[in-house]
C-alpha cells in the first residue's frame, strides 16, 4: 500500500473511502464525521498531537490515538463516539478550561471560536473547577497590530509553530515550561514580521486578536465577500469581513495554487487604505489651479476632449493594480481611436516582442504549485519577500518539508538566503552577465564559461539545480539567457512582474512592444523614452490609469517634470498624489474590494476580482467609464458589463479564448492549462534570432562598465543598487495600522566598506551622485558584496535614480 492509494476504512460503522497516508481526522470527514481538533492545522506542517482533543478508538490498538497524527490504513476500524472516547473528549475540554477565563461575552472570538464550539459539542457541559486560574496582564500589545490575551491562550502551539516553521522568523516563542508556559517574544519586544497577522487567524481562541478589528463586529453582524488582493503580484485570495458596507477585516481564502492559505500583513491590514477618508470619490476637473468635483458627463467630456486633441501624441501608463479589463480598454482607446502606440504598464524598459514571447511561452511557465513539486528552486534577481511575499513562504515550505534544494543569485541579500544551500551575489546591473555565466555552466554552449569569481559563483549555483525538476523564480533584467538557462535545465520560469497584475496587463496589450495577446503592433516608446518625450513635448498627453509614476518610477523626479510639462493629464486614481497634482481631469479609481473584473497571476492564472463593498461616493465601475470614454472617442465597444469586457479580451487575446467568469470561478484557472494555450503566438521550439535581442542600455550605469565586470569603485565610492521594500508603498502610508512600518531610507553596505569608508558607528550618511543627494541611515550587513550598497526605492526621495551608479558617501552633515 502506497500513500495516495484509495483505501476503505470504517468510521463509526460507516464505510469511508480515503487515500492511504491521509490523516484520520481528514479521512473521517469523507464519512461526515467531525473529529474535534485544536492544535492540528495541516498548513503548519507535521501534526504535533499536543492538544489531545482528537483522541479516538482504533480497533486493535489498546490506547486511544490522536486522529490528527494517525495515517489511515485499509481496513482500519475507528470509533469516535464510544463512551471511552467521549470520556477522553470531555476530559480534554475540562482540562482546557481549567485555566481559560470563559470571558466569552467580552471576547472578540465569541461566535466564531473553536473553543466555544468544541466545548459545546464535545465538552462535559459543566465545570468542576473551583480553583483560581492563572493570571496575566491582558490584553497587551504583542505588536502594534496584534493584542495578546494570555489568559485565554490554550497553548495549542499554532502561533509559535507558524513563527518557527512557516514564516521562520522565530520571533514568537513559548517561554517558561509546563503550566507556566506562555507565548511571548525575546525581552518583551514587539513581534514585527511581514506575515505575523496570520497568527490571528490561526488562534483557535481569543488570545490573539487584531487590534484593528477589536470590538468592531460580532460574527452575526457581518457578511463575507471573496476577492483577490491586488496590492502585489502575489494576488492572494482574500475574504472581506463586511459590516454595514464597510470592510472590517481581511481574512485568507485558502487557495493552495496561489497562496497556500496565508496572507502578508500588507494584504491583511491594507484594507484601511480603502476605507481612508482621503479617497477621491468624485470625478474632478482642474479649474483655476484646483481640482473641483464635477458630474461624470462633464468629466468624461473633458477627458475625451483632452485625448482627442492629442490623438497619437497620447501615452497611457497603466498601473499594476489595474484589472485586465481596465488595461484592455485603456490600450484599446489609445491604440484605436487615438492611434498611439504608447502604452506602458511598467517603468522597466521593455524588451522586444520576440524576447517577451520567448519568456512567456506556456511550455516554460511554472505554476506556483510547481514549486512544491520541484527538486530545486533558483531565485534569481529578486527578493521574493519584497517582490511577491507569499512566494517567500512557499519556498521556505518546500525547503523545510520537501528538502527542495534552493539557490539564490541576486545583487542584494535576500530574506531566504538563510535557507538556501548556495547564494551568489553580483553587482547591481550585472544580472544578465551572471545569467549568461550560469547558462554556460549548465551547458548552454552559446555562452562562454566565465572566469574567476563569476565563474566560480555560477558553478556553485549550477551545482544545486536539478535538470528537469527546477523552478526559476526571477525578476529584473530580462534576457534571452534566462530562457536559455531554463531550456538547458528543462526548468520552468516564474517571473515576478513589477506590478500586481503586470502579467495580465502585458497580455492584454499594455506594453509598447505588443498588442493584445502579445500580437504584433507598431512599437511605442519605452518608459524611459516616454518620460523624455513628455518632457520634450513630443508626446503631449498622459493618461494615467491607477498609476503614480512620480512615486513608483525609479526616475520619479523626471516623471514629475514630464507630467508638469504635459499638455493634458487624465488620471484615474484612488488618491490625490504626486501625479494627480498635474492632472487636468481625475476619475475616482476603484479598489480591489469594489472592482469587478479579472487579473492574471504571474503564473498565468486568471482570477476574479469581485466587489465586496459599494463604490465610495460617485465612483463608478471603471470598465464602464472606460467603455463610455471609448464611445465618446468613436469606439462603440458595446461593452455593457464586466463580463462583456472579459469577453472582448477573450476575443482579442487568442490564448484567453472563450474564457468566462464562470470558468475562472472562485479559484481561478491558468490559461496555459486550457486548450486555447495552443493559440500562443510563438510556436513551441521556435526561437528568436539572437541578434534581435536588445540589451537594455539604460540598465548600464554611468561607470559605463560591461555588466558583470564589477567596476572597481573609487576608494570613497559604492556601486548602488535599489530595491522596492515591501513597505515602501502607498498602502503603508494610507493605512493607519501599517504606517509604523514605513521604511526609513537606509544605506546597506558590507562591513568591509563600512570599515574602508570609516562609517562604523556613523548613524546617518549623505549619499551623493552627480549633484543629487539624499540622506540615509547606515546598516552594516554581512552578506552584502563589498563595493556594492543598497537603497530603498519608492520612498519619493529619488533613490531610484541612483541605481547602478557609483556614489560618494559621507557622514551626514548636521546629523546626529
Amino acid at each position: 500500500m502506497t500513500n495516495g492509494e484509495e483505501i476503505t476504512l470504517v468510521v463509526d460503522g460507516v464505510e469511508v473511502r480515503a487515500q492511504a497516508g491521509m490523516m484520520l481526522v481528514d479521512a473521517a470527514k469523507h464519512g461526515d464525521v467531525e473529529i474535534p481538533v485544536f492544535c492540528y492545522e495541516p498548513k503548519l506542517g507535521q501534526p504535533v498531537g499536543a492538544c489531545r482533543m482528537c483522541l479516538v478508538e482504533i480497533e486493535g490498538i489498546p490506547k486511544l490515538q490522536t486522529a490528527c497524527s494517525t495515517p489511515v490504513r485499509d481496513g482500519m476500524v475507528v470509533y469516535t463516539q464510544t463512551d471511552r472516547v467521549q470520556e477522553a473528549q470531555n476530559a480534554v475540554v475540562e482540562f482546557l478550561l481549567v485555566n481559560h477565563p470563559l470571558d466569552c461575552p467580552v471576547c472578540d472570538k465569541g461566535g466564531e471560536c473553536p473553543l466555544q464550539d468544541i466545548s459545546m459539542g464535545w465538552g462535559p457541559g459543566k465545570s468542576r473547577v473551583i480553583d483560581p486560574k492563572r493570571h496575566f496582564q491582558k490584553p497587551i500589545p504583542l505588536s502594534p497590530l496584534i493584542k495578546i490575551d494570555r489568559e485565554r491562550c490554550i497553548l495549542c502551539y499554532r502561533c509559535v509553530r507558524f513563527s518557527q516553521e512557516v514564516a521562520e522568523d522565530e520571533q514568537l516563542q513559548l517561554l517558561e515550561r509546563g503550566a507556566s508556559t506562555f507565548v511571548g517574544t525575546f525581552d518583551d519586544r514587539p513581534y514585527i514580521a511581514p506575515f505575523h497577522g496570520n497568527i490571528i487567524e490561526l488562534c483557535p481562541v481569543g488570545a490573539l486578536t487584531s487590534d484593528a478589528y477589536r470590538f468592531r463586529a460580532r460574527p452575526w453582524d457581518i457578511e463575507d465577500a471573496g476577492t483577490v488582493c491586488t496590492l502585489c503580484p502575489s494576488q492572494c485570495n482574500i475574504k472581506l469581513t463586511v459590516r454595514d458596507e464597510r470592510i472590517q477585516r481581511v481574512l485568507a481564502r485558502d487557495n493552495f495554487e496561489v497562496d497556500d492559505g496565508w496572507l502578508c500583513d500588507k494584504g491583511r491590514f491594507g484594507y484601511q487604505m480603502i476605507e481612508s477618508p482621503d479617497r477621491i470619490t468624485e470625478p474632478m476637473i482642474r479649474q483655476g489651479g484646483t481640482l473641483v468635483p464635477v458630474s461624470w458627463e462633464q468629466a468624461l467630456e473633458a477627458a475625451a476632449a483632452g485625448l482627442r486633441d492629442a490623438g497619437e501624441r497620447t501615452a497611457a501608463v497603466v498601473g499594476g493594480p489595474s484589472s485586465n479589463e481596465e488595461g484592455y480598454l485603456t490600450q484599446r482607446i489609445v491604440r484605436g481611436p487615438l492611434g498611439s502606440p504608447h502604452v506602458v504598464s511598467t517603468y522597466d524598459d521593455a524588451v522586444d516582442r520576440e524576447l517577451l514571447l520567448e519568456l512567456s511561452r506556456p511550455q516554460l511557465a511554472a505554476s506556483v504549485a510547481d514549486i512544491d513539486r520541484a527538486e530545486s528552486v533558483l531565485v534569481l534577481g529578486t527578493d521574493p519577500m519584497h517582490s511577491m511575499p507569499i512566494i517567500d513562504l512557499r519556498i521556505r515550505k518546500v525547503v523545510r518539508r520537501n528538502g527542495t534544494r534552493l539557490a539564490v543569485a541576486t545583487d542584494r541579500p535576500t530574506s531566504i538566503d538563510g535557507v538556501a544551500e548556495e547564494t551568489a551575489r553580483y553587482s547591481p546591473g550585472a544580472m544578465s552577465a551572471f545569467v549568461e555565466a550560469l547558462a554556460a555552466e549548465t551547458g548552454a554552449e552559446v555562452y562562454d564559461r566565465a572566469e574567476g569569481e563569476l565563474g566560480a559563483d555560477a558553478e556553485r549555483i549550477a551545482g544545486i539545480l536539478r535538470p528537469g525538476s527546477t523552478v526559476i523564480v526571477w525578476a529584473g533584467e530580462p534576457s534571452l539567457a534566462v530562457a536559455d538557462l531554463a531550456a538547458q535545465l528543462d526548468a520552468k520560469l516564474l517571473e515576478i512582474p513589477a506590478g500586481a497584475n503586470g502579467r495580465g496587463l502585458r497580455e492584454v496589450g499594455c506594453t509598447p512592444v505588443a498588442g493584445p495577446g502579445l500580437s504584433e503592433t507598431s512599437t511605442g516608446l519605452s518608459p524611459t523614452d516616454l518620460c523624455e518625450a513628455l518632457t520634450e513635448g513630443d508626446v503631449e498627453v498622459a493618461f494615467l490609469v491607477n498609476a503614480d509614476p512620480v512615486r513608483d518610477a525609479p526616475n520619479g523626479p523626471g516623471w514629475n517634470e514630464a507630467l508638469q510639462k504635459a499638455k493634458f493629464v487624465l488620471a484615474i486614481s484612488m488618491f490625490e498624489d504626486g501625479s494627480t497634482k498635474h492632472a487636468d481631469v481625475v476619475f475616482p479609481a476603484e479598489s480591489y474590494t469594489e472592482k469587478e473584473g479579472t487579473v492574471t497571476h504571474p503564473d498565468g492564472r486568471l482570477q476574479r476580482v469581485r466587489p465586496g463593498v459599494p463604490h465610495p461616493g460617485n465612483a463608478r465601475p471603471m470598465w464602464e467609464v472606460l467603455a463610455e470614454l471609448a464611445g465618446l472617442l468613436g469606439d462603440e465597444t458595446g461593452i455593457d458589463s464586466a463580463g462583456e469586457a472579459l469577453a472582448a479580451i477573450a476575443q482579442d487575446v487568442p490564448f484567453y479564448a472563450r474564457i468566462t467568469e464562470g470558468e475562472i470561478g472562485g479559484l481561478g484557472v491558468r490559461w496555459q492549462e486550457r486548450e486555447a494555450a495552443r493559440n500562443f503566438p510563438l510556436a513551441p521550439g521556435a526561437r528568436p534570432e539572437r541578434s534581435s535581442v536588445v540589451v537594455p542600455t539604460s540598465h548600464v550605469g554611468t561607470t559605463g562598465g560591461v555588466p558583470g565586470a564589477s567596476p572597481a569603485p573609487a576608494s570613497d565610492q559604492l556601486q548602488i543598487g535599489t530595491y522596492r521594500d515591501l513597505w515602501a508603498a502607498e498602502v503603508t502610508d494610507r493605512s493607519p495600522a501599517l504606517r509604523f512600518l514605513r521604511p526609513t531610507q537606509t544605506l546597506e553596505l558590507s562591513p568591509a566598506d563600512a570599515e574602508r569608508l570609516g562609517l562604523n558607528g556613523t548613524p546617518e550618511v549623505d549619499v551623493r551622485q552627480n549633484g543629487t543627494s539624499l540622506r540615509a541611515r547606515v546598516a552594516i550587513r554581512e552578506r552584502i558584496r563589498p563595493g556594492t550598497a543598497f537603497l530603498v526605492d519608492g520612498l519619493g526621495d529619488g533613490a531610484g535614480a541612483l541605481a547602478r551608479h557609483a556614489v560618494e558617501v559621507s557622514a551626514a552633515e548636521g546629523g546626529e
Partner: protein
Amino acid sequence: MAGQTRMLFRHVDEPGLASIDTYRRLGGYRALEKALRDIDPDELLSSLEDSGLRGRGGAGFSMGKKASFLPRGDMEKFLCCNADESEPGAFKDRELMSKNPHQLIEGIVIAAVAAGIGQAFVFIRGEYWEVADILDRAVEEAYAAGYVGENILDTGHRVELVVHRGAGAYICGEETALLDALEGKRGNPRLKPPFPAIQGLYGGPTLINNVETLSNVPHIVKNGSDWFKGFGTEQSPGTKVVSVSGCVQRPGNYEIELGIPSREIIYGLAGGPPEGHEVKAWFPGGSSAPVLTADELDLPYSFESMADAGSMLGSGSIIVADENVSIPHLALRTARFYHHESCGKCTPCREGTNWTVKMLERVISGEATPMDLDVISSVQDNIIGNCLCVLGDSMAMPVGSMVAKFRHEFEAAIEAGRDAAPRPLDESPTDVKPVPVGAAG
C-alpha cells in the same frame, strides 16, 4: 554484604577506578578489543539480543532487540546514552558514571559498533556537573588511548562521543524529549511513531539506552550471553542496581539479582526504617510507581511481580515512607514535582498536574470536601492514557494510588486543615494574586 551481586559495581571503591589506567588494570577495555577484533558486528548484535539484557531506564525493553530495529545502511546513525537520571529516588547512574565512567564508555562504543553507529552522545542532566566533568575527562582519555574516535584500535571502526550537558528538566529523560534537547530545542516529547530507531536525532536512526544498560554491555561481550543469563531471572537476566532511599537506615545503591524478596532489599540491605519505626508505604520504582503498602513487602522484587501488584519496577528505585509520614503531604510533594516538570505540550498533563496540585493544596489547607477527593481521583483517571508521553501518567498513577489506598488520611487531613485555619463562611475563596509573568513553579 549479603544479597548483593556486584558486577557493574565490582571494584566500585577502588581508588582511581575513574582513570583509564586503573580501569584497564582491572580488565577494562578487553571487551572492546574482543568485540572489534574477534567478532563481527552482526554477531555482536545477536549476542546482545541473546543475552536477554533489558533496558534499565524504566521500560525494560530488550536492549539487543531495540538495537536491531535500526535500519542497516550507510546513513548516519546515532546512539544516545540517556544519563538524564531525574526520576525521584533514582541515583544509580550518577554513581555508575562517577565511579566507573570507562565501563560506560566501553559499553557505548561496543553498542555503537554493533549497530553500525558512528556518532554517540551522552545526554547527562545538567545538575550532574561534577559527574559530567569526570565523564569528560574519561572520554578524553579514551580518545587519547584510541578507544573512541576514528579508526578505533586500527579496526577501521569510527565512533565519536560527545558529552552533552542538559540544563535541568526531568522530561528530557523521556527519550524523544532527550532528542529535542540534544538538537538544541526545548525538551518536548515527540509524537511516536516515528520511533527513534527509525527517525530520531537529526531525523536519523537512533538508539537510545540508559547508562546502566550500556554499562552491562562490556560484561556480556567479555563473558558471553550464556554467562550473563546465569544471573537474575529468566525474564530479566543479569544484575540490577537498586537505589534505596527515604526512611531507611542505609540509603544507597545496591546491586542485586532481580527476584529476591523486596523485604530483603529494604530491610536486609538498606537496614529498614530506623529503630522503632515501620514501613507504611513504599514506591517500588521511583515516584512514578503506584505506592505499595507494608503488606506487600514480601513480594519478589521483579518486573513481573511489581506489575502484578499494580505497580512497576521502573528504574529500580525504592523510596520508603514510614508511619510518621502524612500521605496527603506525600501526594502533594509528588504532584508538585510532576506539575513542575510537565513540559506543557499536551493538555491533560499540563492542566491535569496543575489542577491536581491546587486540589491537594486545598485538601491540606482544609478548603476541600471529601467530594473533592472523588474529583481528584477522576482527574487522575482522565490523565491516564490520554497524554502525549508518560509524564502525566507518572503523576496520576501514584497520586491515584495514594488516594485509593489511604483515603481516610486525606479525609482526616481535610478536617485537620479546617481546624487549624478556620475561615468564616462569607470570606471569598483564596485571594487571587496575579502570577507574575515568567514565574516558574
